[in-house]
């Protein structure tokens, strides 16, 4: 493994490090900044970010489709959306630079990432959808069984 070549640029080549060690420290700096931003936002909870950034569309099928497509902005608090995006950013750099995914072949990368991402999205969608449904049954649609 001594002849192992590392890809040294991050941000699509915007920053290129001189050595692998330097890249590691650079990524640490990035991860630390992201975590610090998360903690500061989490403590102060800016009022402007405490509600979703868009209101639901109303109308026919088109509005429903728009609501589904833009659901991340319509139904998630902006602050939580920022947290989730920052988490994925951190996960990307941990996997790509610390776990050396950047240096693996494209097929190994896809084998691992696509499988996990697909299955996790599927599971999360089903469970959150179902959780929301049960919540709506608790709050609005109580069904009586004793007639």
């Amino acid at each position, binding site marked *: 493994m001594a002849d192992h070549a590392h890809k040294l640029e991050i941000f699509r080549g915007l920053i290129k490090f001189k050595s692998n060690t330097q890249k590691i420290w650079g990524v640490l700096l990035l991860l630390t900044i992201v975590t610090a931003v998360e903690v500061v936002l989490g403590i102060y909870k800016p009022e402007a970010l*405490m509600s979703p950034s868009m209101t639901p569309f109303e109308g026919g099928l088109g509005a429903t489709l728009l609501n589904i497509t833009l659901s991340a902005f319509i139904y998630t608090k902006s602050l939580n959306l920022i947290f989730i995006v920052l988490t994925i950013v951190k996960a990307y750099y941990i996997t790509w630079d610390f776990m050396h995914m950047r240096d693996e*072949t494209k097929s*190994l990368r896809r084998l691992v990432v696509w499988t996990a991402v697909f299955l996790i999205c599927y599971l999360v969608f089903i469970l959150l959808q179902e959780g929301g449904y049960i*919540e709506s049954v608790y709050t609005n649609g109580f069904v009586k069984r004793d007639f």
Partner: protein
Amino acid sequence: MIIFAQLKNNISTMDSTVVSTGTEGKTWGGGNQPLKASYGKMMMWFFIVSDALTFSGFLAAYGFSRFKFIDYWPIADEVFTHVPFLHGQELPMIYVAFMTFVLIMSSVTMVLAVDAGHQMKKNKVIWYMFFTIIGGIIFVGSQAWEWATFIQGDYGAVQTKGGNILQFGAYKTIDGEEVFKRVAVEEFAIAAHSDRKQHQNKNGLWFVDEGALPAFSVEDVYHGLEAHPNILVRTQTINEEGEKTVLSREESLAQLKANGKRYVKGANLEVNEYGTPLFADFFFFITGFHGFHVLSGVVINIIIFFNVIIGTYERRKNYEMVEKVGLYWHFVDLVWVFVFTFFYLV
């Protein structure tokens, strides 16, 4: 007889002849490694994918339960406010952020160890592995402390007949602003003399057991509440402003009188003072499962650490084993990034 002889003949030719397929040296001729990764590394990646699915199962189940009780879920900021050695100060998230940083830092020393391994620098690998192990131990220790604080609790609450939690507090003026501050039940409850003793199998039915009795009865808490006109009850319901609902004085007394069932302090798997029981259950299972991963990671790191010291990989002329445990260690860090977001931030 002839058929049998022919069959025998066939078998013997199959045994002795190497079949030529005409694909030798081509893509499907075998013997090539399209993923350019060793067997061990591949298997570590496969394990990581399956373990990632286990963790996402836990986190998705957490999301499911939280969506189910979206308006009643405890606010993590109000639960995890403790930092060791800083008693009585409310510092939400600070300690968890510190733990996150420790784990990221130990990931960095791990990747530096892997890098030093690529360059066959044994002493550097030893030192970086050492720092990684120390980081892991600090993290597991911190998590144990978090658990202990969580289990012990600090304010106490009353569980209602419907399984909800009533917490107590009072409005205080801080910097000219009216803020609702929690008050510990121990500070205002008036303990009455009680003849009720804990039932143990030596003083009652030998086949029936009972846990320790709560420090106060609901009557004790109610008398205390009556005697302190400034104290109010706070319910689990989250209002429009994203805060827990505080009841009026009359409602507080009525609610406690009508529905109070038992005094609760701290947390276990059945009930906790922070809110819905599922919150504590998921806290124990998710952080516990992750903590167990960190613990086993530390143990594996220690084994590899000693292997490096005795020169196993120097003789093997490659440090791929360090890289493989490194993958596992980074994965543990990766999972924590998600646990941190979904349990403590969101």
